[in-house]
């Protein structure tokens, strides 16, 4: 809900993403802080942030397929992989990034449709199984193809990213590059929600029987949900390829797919805010525990340090379970409650 005193002259203004001056200031401040961050951080933290941005783009895509359209997908990491391999091959032609990224996104979307065609006809467990098959098939197919295609076991080297003729080869460069793509992806993800397409996906999720009778082609929209969700994965894959400079199937595992889902669940699957909060939260916990483990190791307590590393996945798994049991709407819902509380303060009435 909105604070009082906010009035709209047009429905477009009402549909705006940042409806109040306060929201605009807050987002502007956040973007400025992200732009300035490299001045105060070293290569390690910039690398962590870069990785977080890439993860966020992939989770935005998962949010479209799973959150908006209600189609479970445990192959998002494989689709990121498709984008990365596509980028590696495209980079050989010396194409500029603003061609490579959209083409990689489209290629990834197209590949996902191959799997979505059968997947969209089944529900629940069988859908999960079909996407699981996509994840399992990914390395089998890459390794099975002639090595001259996708490099087989060795993988593919990626031609370095250049922007305006200059090579982007430092962590700071990659930080800014992925930040820019993350901002664009964020805008797109929020746009989906207020659009005809987004409403149709949500209609399919809420009640597919009614949606079909009300004129929405349910099958087509389920497939499109995979297509769009995988385009985000493709963009994330492009970033990943340039950051890693070398792509192999090992970077795109079922484990990562499950983590993407976990982040979406912890944050809240129903809004892009959930993707942001989930990715930020899990990354913070991961990094926090990692720091803690390293510190303990340095102090000489080998076993305690090792235990922390082993416990990281248990702790993160516990986060997902707690979210599922106590707040299925995720951190995004908590955030909404908090925000409404602040807007109403000090008068606790609507």
């Amino acid at each position, binding site marked *: *809900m909105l604070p009082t005193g906010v009035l709209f002259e*047009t*429905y*477009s203004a*009402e*549909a705006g993403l940042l409806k109040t001056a306060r929201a605009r200031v807050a987002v502007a401040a956040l973007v400025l802080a992200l732009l300035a961050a490299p001045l105060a951080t070293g290569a390690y933290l910039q690398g962590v942030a870069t990785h977080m941005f890439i993860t966020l783009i992939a989770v935005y895509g998962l949010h479209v397929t799973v959150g908006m359209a209600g189609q479970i997908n445990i192959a998002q990491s494989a689709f990121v992989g498709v984008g990365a391999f596509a980028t590696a091959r495209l980079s050989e032609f010396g194409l500029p990034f603003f061609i490579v990224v959209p083409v990689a996104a489209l290629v990834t979307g197209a590949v996902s449709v191959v799997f979505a065609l059968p997947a969209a006809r089944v529900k629940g467990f069988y859908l999960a199984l079909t996407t699981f098959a996509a994840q399992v098939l990914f390395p089998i197919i890459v390794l099975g193809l002639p090595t001259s295609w996708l490099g087989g076991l060795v993988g593919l080297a990626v031609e370095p990213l250049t922007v305006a003729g200059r090579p982007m080869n430092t962590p700071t460069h990659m930080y800014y590059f992925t930040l820019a793509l993350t901002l664009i992806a964020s*805008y*797109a993800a929020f*746009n*989906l929600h*207020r*659009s*005809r*397409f*987004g*409403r*149709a996906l*949500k*209609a399919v*999720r*809420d*009640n597919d*029987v*009614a*949606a*079909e*009778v*009300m*004129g*929405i*082609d*349910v099958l087509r929209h389920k497939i*499109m949900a995979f*297509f*769009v969700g995988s385009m985000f994965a493709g963009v994330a894959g492009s970033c990943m390829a340039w950051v890693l400079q070398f792509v192999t199937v090992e970077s795109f595992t079922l484990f990562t797919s499950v983590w993407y889902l976990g982040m979406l669940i912890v944050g809240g699957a*129903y809004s892009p805010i959930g993707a942001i909060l989930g990715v930020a939260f899990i990354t913070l916990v991961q990094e926090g525990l990692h720091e803690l483990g390293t510190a303990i190791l340095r102090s000489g307590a080998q076993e305690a340090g090792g235990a922390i590393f082993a416990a990281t996945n248990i702790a993160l798994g516990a986060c997902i379970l707690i979210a599922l049991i106590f707040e299925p709407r995720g951190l995004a819902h908590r955030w909404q409650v908090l925000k409404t509380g602040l807007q109403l303060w000090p008068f606790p009435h609507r």
Partner: protein
Amino acid sequence: MTRPAPLAAGISAAAAAGRRAPVLHAEALQLRFGAVAALRDVSLSVAENEIHAIIGPNGAGKSSLLNCLSGFYRPQSGRVYFDGEDITQLRPHRRAAAGLGRTFQGIQTYPSMTARENILTGFHNRMRTGVFGALVWWGRVRAEEEAFTAKAEEIIEFLELEELRHAVVGDLSYGLRKRVDLGRAMALEPRILIMDEPMAGMNPEEKGDLARFILDIRDANRIPVVLVEHDMEVVMDISDTVTVLDFGEVIAVGTPREVRENEAVIAAYLGTE
């Protein structure tokens, strides 16, 4: 949207109904579920501008008939014609695009969306924005969204839902959700409105409101309305033609008065109540 006529008795049009060209025509529909014959040789003609009630005891096949009309069930044999076109093979969403508006038995709204979003989904086939427009949100997309929001607001005003436009539909009362369901069907800008037990579970006041909305929609848009209803008082009050189903068969068709006096109907249905 204007509301020209108040709650009218609505019986005057009945006499003429039989002579007008049918908008929707179902012919010899047969529908079986395993051993159960839900529809046996059912035919139905809905004339322009009429309110056509379908009544019958529980399990008579009323919902099955509506589902065959809207394409959700495929009859094993028989045909459905809409505006002279054979639509028997069309999938439900294509029929909706062709102008068949539908409301459901029970609650079939989209619970996580607001009342206005529910209604906006009804415009799906009138809007053009595709996937890329949705992602980029360029000027034309914005303009389309503005225009259709204004249209949705007309429906919201008509159904007196102004206070609830941003309310999440899952939180609304039964009667209000049914009203949102009707609003969504109106957004299809249908050329016929098909309603399955729109008043079931409503209190008399809500029923009165809905009866008024149904008559107003018919009068304002000049479209026929097909409705399944158990409340005999409402049926006799607002319908021009009544079709009576029993065990999957049509046992009577006529004006409310004719049907009320029909012996087979009294025996099969009214008599047993």
